[in-house]
């Protein structure tokens, strides 16, 4: 591992020009690295074709250079350390210091040349998911080309024939390498910047890991029982918010490289899917949604006009995916009287606290000692109490007067008076209750009109 992510420090700078890279790859573009786990807002392109860069949530975009009209990138596959959340670090494999890897951004019609250096202990390859390219550039080790041996650098070169939302990931020992965190976004912007323009363009990849609390490396053999549900290898409460200026047109691009589907649900809005990894969706084919199910190995981009101010949750609707590490073999203790048991257990384990007897919310409130390198399964504090969330969860923060390039957290939304739920302290209104399992037909008599 040649770079270490630091817990402290704000928006980290891209560490360009590693000395070794300069001498070893004199003809190659410099391999840029980053060690910051925070969202890095990319600059506008200085060369090549004009485009509106995406904001990679808790990520960054890979620098490039123009070389005789070809856009050159340098990806380095290597072991990395990723801070998934404050107090939880994972030893993964990634690209250029991070997992997920940096976002590659280019423009439709450009020719790209991507150098891929393998610093992993085993061979790898890169498959450019969703792109139309020559068969020999498709990056399936053994099929498209020989796999890239450790220490070797391969070059991929192709024209970007279509714009849209794509990914890159290994196609050599794929199961292990993806379970270890190797993946990144590949965004091809339309040649015409006026084609479906948006003010804010967010992008992230869904990745799942099985990292036992107290350990650091994912169990790559796991197939279903994952416990770290991440966006760009980060978990709530440390996934950055999606900060939006009121009135912005917003696009959210999301790719799924986990082993299950994810119904991504955003509060406060309905929206339309405008792009998949197959391409842009014509207006006539879109329908409104408040959740989009993102299948395994697919990408979706949806758009909305940010007209409703507030703090709006955005999360996977599989409720276990908004939990961090938790046991799945726990009995349900709801309603269990643990007073006697507590006394009995404390004779042997004085630190024992009864939990779960009223649900699991006490987990979010109590801060008890946990194993090393893990964070509570439900966590995060809002302005009014514990959020009791984890994993695939963030907040879309729509505010008035946010500057175009400002993505910094504006803090919690203050609800205008009269627009927030409150406690009722008056007389209890009458309420109905159903007890029987039989279908109950509501009498229609009161709906009858006199004619």
């Amino acid at each position: 591992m040649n770079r270490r992510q630091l817990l402290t420090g704000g928006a980290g700078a891209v560490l360009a020009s590693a000395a070794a890279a300069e001498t070893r790859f004199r003809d190659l573009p410099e391999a840029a690295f980053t060690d910051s786990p925070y969202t890095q807002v990319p600059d506008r392109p200085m060369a090549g074709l004009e485009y509106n860069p995406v904001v990679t949530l808790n990520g960054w975009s890979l620098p490039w250079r123009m070389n005789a009209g070809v856009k050159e990138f340098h990806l380095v596959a290597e072991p990395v350390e990723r801070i998934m959340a404050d107090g939880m670090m994972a030893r993964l494999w990634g690209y250029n210091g991070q997992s997920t890897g940096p976002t590659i951004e280019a423009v439709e019609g450009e020719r790209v040349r991507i150098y891929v250096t393998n610093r992993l202990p085993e061979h790898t390859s890169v498959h450019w998911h969703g792109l139309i390219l020559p068969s020999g550039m498709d990056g399936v080790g053994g099929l498209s080309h020989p796999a890239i041996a450790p220490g070797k650098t391969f070059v991929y070169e192709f024209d970007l024939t279509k714009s849209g939302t794509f990914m890159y990931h290994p196609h050599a020992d794929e199961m292990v390498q993806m379970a270890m965190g190797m993946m990144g976004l590949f965004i091809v912007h339309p040649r015409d910047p006026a084609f479906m323009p948006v003010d804010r363009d967010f992008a992230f990849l869904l990745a799942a890991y099985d990292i036992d609390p107290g350990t650091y490396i994912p169990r790559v053999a796991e197939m279903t029982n994952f416990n770290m549900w991440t966006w760009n290898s980060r978990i709530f409460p440390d996934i950055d918010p999606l900060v939006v200026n009121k009135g912005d047109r917003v696009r959210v691009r999301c790719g799924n490289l986990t082993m299950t589907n994810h119904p991504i649900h955003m509060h406060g809005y309905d929206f339309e899917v405008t792009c998949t990894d197959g391409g842009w969706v014509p207006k006539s084919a879109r329908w409104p949604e408040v959740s989009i199910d993102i299948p395994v190995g697919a990408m979706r981009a949806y758009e909305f006009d940010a007209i409703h101010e507030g703090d709006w949750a955005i999360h996977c609707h599989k409720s276990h995916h908004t939990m961090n590490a938790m046991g799945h073999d726990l009995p349900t203790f709801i309603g269990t009287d643990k007073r006697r048991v507590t006394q009995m257990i404390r004779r042997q384990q004085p630190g024992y606290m009864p939990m779960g007897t009223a649900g699991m919310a006490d987990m979010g409130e109590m801060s008890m000692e946990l194993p090393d390198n893990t964070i509570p399964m439900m966590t995060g504090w809002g302005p009014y109490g514990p959020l009791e969330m984890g994993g695939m969860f963030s907040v879309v923060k729509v505010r008035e007067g946010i500057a175009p390039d400002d993505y910094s957290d504006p803090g919690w939304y203050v609800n205008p008076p009269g627009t927030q739920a409150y406690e009722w302290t008056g007389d209890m209104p009458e309420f109905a209750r159903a007890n029987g399992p039989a279908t109950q037909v509501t009498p229609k008599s009161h709906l009858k009109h006199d004619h």
Partner: protein
Amino acid sequence: MSARLLGLASLVLLAACTDQTVVDRASDPRAGFGFVEDGAKRSTGASAAWAQTSAEVAANEARVRALVAGKTVGPETAVQVALMNNRRIQAAYAELGLSATDLWDVALGPRPRLEIGISGIGEAGLARSLEAVVTGAILDLATQKPRTKLAETRFRQAQMMALADTVALAAETRRAWIDAVAAFEVSSMIGRAQGTAEAASELAAELGRTGAMNRADQAREHVFTAELAAERTEARLAAQLAKEKLTRLMGLYGTGTDYYVPDSLPSLPGRRPAPSNAERLALEHRTDLAIAKLELEAIAQQYRLDTQTRRLSSADLSVGVEIERSDARETEASPVLAVGFEIPLYDAGPLTSRRGALEYSRAAHTLAQRAVNARSEARSAHAAVTGTYNIARHWRDEVLPLRREIDREALKSYNGMLTSTFELIEDARDGLEAELETAKAKAAYWRAESDLKTVIWGPIPGGAE
């Protein structure tokens, strides 16, 4: 010389043949016990007491009562009480007393029943019998010195046996004390394990009540508790029986049984057992070796006596008393491992009878094997002390800390809702099992330690493990 004259002359001789110093020694009511007392103090640290009168017995019992009544008895007290109050050892001391009376008897010299002889003088036919009596008396007189020496050897043997019995009783008692305490320790630990099982059982019942656990899983938790309860009852019984054995060895009954033993054995000593000198000490001190050695001596003396008697009876009695031939005594040292043990090799020459030579040879071989065994037992006992110490320390310093870490981590996992209460309880139970094994290893050490103390003075009662 006529037989009659010989007889009269002999009578004069007989009157002066008592060995007064031996008589004084042997006639002491506590003859030879000083040796036992001294040996007991050195070997067991406790004082041997020989109660000969009912008053002494009563006084002993009163002292014992003061030592144990309502008290928690330590190993030293237990041994002390056993030496004072165990009637088997008092019987052994009485054996010593009997041996002293034998010596006394011999030392007094022949006491011919002259009144019989004299009454028959002048009557024909009685002269021969008188002669026989007198001859016998003269024979006795002539051999009195070797007979006294033999009696002294037997007496020394009896002293050694009394000491051996004392050492054995002390060893048995110390062992019984360790067994009893260890059994109570185990019983209380199983009790704690049962406490955790009951917690799981209680939790299962509660989950059954709320509808979160089916009957089969509830029964699984309950059956474990139920089985453990049986184990606990067994452990309690074992502790009770172990204590009863100690009570028996301490000679207690009735209200005397109203005493306690500690709940747990002392912790391991901080230091590893020192290098062994047990082999050397055993060869110096072992009572069984000393007894066998004395046996050899006694056999030699016996046969020298027999030879002499035979020779005397066939010799002309008027020549008087041919007393003792000097021994041709040879010894051979066999230094092995810098520790030597001498087996006296008497010249078999004087042992004219084949029977004598064979008996001597048998005793000599028995002694030699006993010495070999003693050396091996001493080495084994030391190896056992070192080994059990290392094992017990390993449990205490390696296994238990890991178990405690598991307990700490189990609690953290439970805190994080990564594992359930049942797993937490199970880890706690595993931790208790490790504590149980640690306690057992500690008990094994204390048993070995006790054996090492014993093996220097005599064989371990019940044999070495």
